[in-house]
């Protein structure tokens, strides 16, 4: 899977952080951020290194408090790293901050829209801060409002907007000056499914204009739908970085097959294992849960075993592993439990 793309366009095929030097639009080398508050020190970002390739949608995935937002704040020049170096485009963070601000667009986690202004005024005001030429600014603002499906709301105060509309406005606002890189910190947090879907569509549209997009999220579905590569962060550390497909392939358990039954037979599990096609099987109340590397291919053999024992099946489902499963595999914890809980896990921790 590892090869370079000459186009520089959406590069879903790039894996494991390797790419030709010129295509790496963000380079992060051993970046750490330590917050000191009185006698307590918190390491929010702990020796993180990775590259982002030009033109991709890159996902930073992890539970709340994993250090995603801190890393974004470092890259967007809001705070400087305690140690390590990071380059955004050709510019070094904490050294050429003003130049960096000129090539990035940022949509922070908490809204920074002025709710008293209209959507159009918000865009024009921001366009001036971003140095967009006055001559093209009105057209640009209207064009972006159209992208966000907000044309009919252009001259209404943002206060009257729904959460999804505000979010879409904020994302296009970050895109006013056609930045090379767009940072989206939890772009769909707190949105209903419809709005979330619309925001995703918009992110894809912006990416189609050759913008590199970095987004943080703790929604697996979002990362899976949008991102060409995903970095998992946990407790300030980068624990894995790959394409979604490769992440899932790295799980030893493979697909999960769930079969509903009415009554259990003692000989079933040994017989299933005897087929040699599956990795594990266990019975839970009225279900048998089987894991196998290639679920749909081994299913007929499994069904045959059930029939041999004359066990009627009430349901069958095959589920590919999700990124959630990947995270559980990597850390031993569920993604949404946050940090500090269940800290005994950690099987197969990757550097």
């Amino acid at each position, binding site marked *: 899977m590892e090869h370079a793309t000459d186009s520089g366009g959406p590069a879903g095929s790039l894996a494991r952080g390797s790419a030709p030097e010129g295509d790496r639009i963000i380079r992060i080398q051993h970046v750490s951020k330590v917050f000191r508050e009185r006698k307590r020190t918190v390491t929010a970002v702990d020796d993180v290194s990775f590259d982002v390739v030009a033109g991709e949608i890159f996902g930073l995935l992890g539970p709340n408090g994993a250090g995603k937002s801190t890393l974004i704040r470092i890259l967007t020049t*809001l705070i400087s790293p305690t140690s390590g170096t990071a380059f955004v485009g050709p510019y070094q963070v904490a050294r050429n901050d003003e130049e960096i*601000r*000129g090539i990035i667009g*940022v949509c*922070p986690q908490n809204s*920074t829209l002025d709710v008293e202004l209209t959507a159009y005024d918000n865009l024009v005001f*921001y366009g001036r*801060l971003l140095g967009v030429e006055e001559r093209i600014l009105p057209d640009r603002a209207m064009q972006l409002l159209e992208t966000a499906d907000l044309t009919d709301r252009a001259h209404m105060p943002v206060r009257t907007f729904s959460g999804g509309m505000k979010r879409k406005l904020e994302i296009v606002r970050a895109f006013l000056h056609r930045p090379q890189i767009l940072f989206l910190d939890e772009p769909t947090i707190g949105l209903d499914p419809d709005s979330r879907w619309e925001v995703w569509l918009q992110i894809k549209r912006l990416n189609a204009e050759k913008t590199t997009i970095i987004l943080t999220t703790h929604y697996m579905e979002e990362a899976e739908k949008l991102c060409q590569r995903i970095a998992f962060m946990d407790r300030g550390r980068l624990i894995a970085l790959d394409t979604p497909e490769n992440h899932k392939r790295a799980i030893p358990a493979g697909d999960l097959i769930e079969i509903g039954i009415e009554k259990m037979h003692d000989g079933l599990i040994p017989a299933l294992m005897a087929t040699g096609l599956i990795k594990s099987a266990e019975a839970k109340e009225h279900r048998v849960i089987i894991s196998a590397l290639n679920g749909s291919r081994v299913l007929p053999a499994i069904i045959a075993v059930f029939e041999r024992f004359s066990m009627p099946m009430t349901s069958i489902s095959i589920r590919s592993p999700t990124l959630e499963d990947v995270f559980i595999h990597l850390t031993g914890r569920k993604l949404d439990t946050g940090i500090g809980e269940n800290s005994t896990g950690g099987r197969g921790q990757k550097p």
Partner: protein
Amino acid sequence: MIRGAVAIFTRDFKKFLSNPFVIVMTLFMPVMYLLIFGNAMGGAIVHIPVGVVQDEPYITETPLYTAAVAELKDFHQPDKPPTFDVTVYTSEEVAKQALSQGRISAAVIFPSDVAADTTVRVYEDSSDYMVPTLIEGGVTASVAASGFPNPVFFNRIYGTVDYIMFFGVGVIVMAIFMTTMMGGAFALIRDRELGIIEGYLVTPVKRSSIILGTIGSTTVRAFLAGTIIFIFDVLITGVVIRQPEDFLLVLLVIFIASIGVTSLVVALASRFSTQQEYASVVAFFNLILFMTSGAFYPILGMPSWLQWIALINPEAYTVHALRSIILRGQGLAIIAPDLIALGIFSTLAIILGIVTYRRTLE
């Protein structure tokens, strides 16, 4: 019903108790009102500077002069210091000049002979509240006590100044303060609470542009508010602007005061993270600065500790400068010390404002 009420009560009370700063300020404010408002208003006005001259042809001090000046120096309200600080001038010209420059509040010209048809002439600064009445009472009583028959003639050199004219000037200063304290700074804190300021920081806009824009917008607002109230003042209180230069001078004073107060407020607003804390501090500043500015009551009538505050109070200089121009028609020469004081204050405030605001942007 009771359960819900208790829940809300408990929540409100818990929040109130969790902010010691606001608790202290809520108790502190009434006490400060008592001390400042109570002392600043209605105190006995004493040590009014008065000049005395015996008119030409001067041969020797007349008994009228000697007796009346002695009475004037001794004149006081029960258990109070002397009402007048008497300075002897050698000629009417010099005394009148001192009066027009505001160094004395009245010039008392005694005639060179004692007779019922030669008058004691009193030229008095009528632009101050209460002071002309005290001078008139004091001089009349002193001449009467001297036992000589000369009548006293009073000349209010700025005409009759009503209290509304006197107070109207103070309201201009209040407009400046209100606009910045309430309007500008609250908006600034709210912008920060809402994260709007953080939004600025990821754009290529320079930090200095943010500071300039913030201070600039609030200054202009304060300036406009001050100017509008000034025009209002002219329309309803009956003060007369004598010449266009005076109008421009008023605008200059309003502008310098606006930029100084705005910068001070930006510095304060940068120090306080919540609107509540800021509001209690500002209420205190508003009280102490406005009360000691002389807008309500002559500074001469305040106890000395409040007079010291007035000495470093930029609003007091603003009020004095505006009164000099609007009520007394005095020019740049007279208000120059006020402008210098305001200039120093504004420069310090701008530096403080930039430094503190900048720190919140880093």
